[in-house]
């Protein structure tokens, strides 16, 4: 689909007067069966996940994998040399696997570090970051999203998207300034 000026269409967006109105609109859009859409607000809105029908994020699985990698890395790097490759008696402490209390801080820290890396990078990828620009910024009104604007956008590549019906749905939910957003 193209705009009258020949740009590709990103989707249709609407502005809502309040967080509550946006919340109610999100429920309607969810129930209409849309999959590729998003809401934008200056602050997190409690219960919005549910209103949007977002399931549980799979970020936690990635973080768990990162944490386990961290634990194993630490164990291998510490036990490997001090127990197996080059046992050394330090302070009269044991040098078999029993030396593990001395390793705990490192095990702990590497677990945290790898979990944090996994969380940070997986989160970036899941959000489509990093990117230079977003089509929503082509809409002047959208600048208010960091101040007092509440927006909802339905993407054109959603299988249920059709210009008239989607526009009609946004009107029904109380959306204002309904605008077609173009790509770069």
């Amino acid at each position: 689909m193209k705009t009258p000026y020949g740009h590709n269409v990103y989707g249709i967006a609407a502005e809502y007067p309040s967080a509550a109105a946006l919340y109610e609109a999100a429920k309607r859009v969810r129930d209409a069966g849309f999959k590729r859409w998003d809401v934008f607000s200056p602050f997190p809105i409690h219960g919005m996940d549910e209103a949007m029908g977002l399931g549980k994020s799979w970020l936690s699985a990635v973080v768990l994998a990162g944490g386990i990698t961290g634990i194993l890395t630490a164990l291998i790097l510490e036990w490997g040399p001090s127990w197996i490759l080059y046992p050394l008696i330090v302070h009269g402490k044991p040098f078999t696997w029993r030396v593990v209390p001395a390793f705990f801080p490192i095990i702990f820290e590497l677990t945290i570090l790898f979990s944090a890396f996994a969380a940070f990078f997986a989160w970036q990828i899941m959000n489509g970051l990093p990117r230079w620009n977003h089509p929503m910024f082509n809409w002047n009104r959208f600048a208010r999203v960091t101040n007092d604007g509440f927006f909802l956008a339905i993407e054109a590549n959603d299988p249920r998207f059709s210009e008239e019906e989607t526009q009609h749905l946004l009107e029904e939910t109380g959306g204002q300034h309904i605008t077609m957003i173009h790509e770069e």
Partner: protein
Amino acid sequence: MSELTREPVPQGEYFETNRFAGLSLGLGVGALVGLVLCLIGAFVSPLQFSFSWMFGFILFFTMCNGCLFWIIVHYATDAEWTVVVRRQLENIAVLLLALAILAIPILLLRHQLFEWTNIPPGQDHVLDSKRQYLNWPFFIFRAVLYFVLLGGMAYLLRRFSVAQDRDGSPRFTIWMRKVSFGGLPIFGLALTFAAFDWLMGLNYRWYSTMWGPYIFAGSVGSSMSLLVLVITALRKAGYLKIVTLEHYHIMGKWMLAFCIFWAYIGFGQYMLYWYANIPEETQFFIVRNTQSWWPLSLLLVFGRFFAPFGILLLRSIKKHPHQLCWVAGWLVFMQALDMYIIVLPALHGTGVRLSIWDLICPLTIGCSLAFVYLRILGRASMFPVRDPRLIESLRLSN
């Protein structure tokens, strides 16, 4: 989303004391029989009995204090989710006043419990340098002070909260906030020094700077588990249906948080001693990590941290009251084990020697407190009906 839905304010819910008269009677009889048995025990085997009583006493003392801490934190942080469960925290915390009576045997049996009370000045230099603190009049004074401060706070917080049920005046919330802000440092100091006096004092040669936080971490974590058990029991009995899975989710998160915090403090204490390897410090762990105490210490490490940590990470467990109750019950049991291997090795340094008093004493104290709890429960609504934040707490989502 307060603009969207208008729910009616729920009416107060009152515990039907008559419906549970049988349970109350059973607990009362259990407590009486137990107290008589304990009286016999105190004369038949005073040494074993005094340590068993200390074990039972400190177990419930820590858990009641943990509940007091949750109320204080509720007001200090102006939390909203706690409102629906807060009355039960208040009911448990106020049991500290009953515990003050149950602390009397500890003072009477001091010569069995505290070795330092038997050593005259001039014999042990280590002790002599601590006499400024470890002397009997000051010890008594402190014991009374702890109960006045902690019990007084618990009493005030419950009294104001119940008074608010009548007129819903926000000035009670302001007062309780003042009590809580003043109470935060008082609570921390009182619990820390109580732990010094009654637990670290069992061996006057030993000391740990982590002792206060260690006892604190155990008591606060286990009291959250206790709260889960109490709330679920009341829901089973048909009350407190306003507590939702969202509240369970938060309680589960706190159980997980304090599971980690306990391990952090416990390991921090252990590792520094292990690394420094100074005899007067390591003596505590040498006794507990050798002989038959060793398996129990290992059970504590795995049972109180690794196993519940892995289980509580799952969100589905935290949102499933029945399964969460199993974890909560286990964590309360682990708190009992923790207190057991703090108190009893001071007597049986050569290995575990189970005694019937180890069972009778905590059961007696538990029955007595449960009996008092049921009495208190019927006196006021099961949740603070007119709390200004009640509606927000009812609509909790996280």
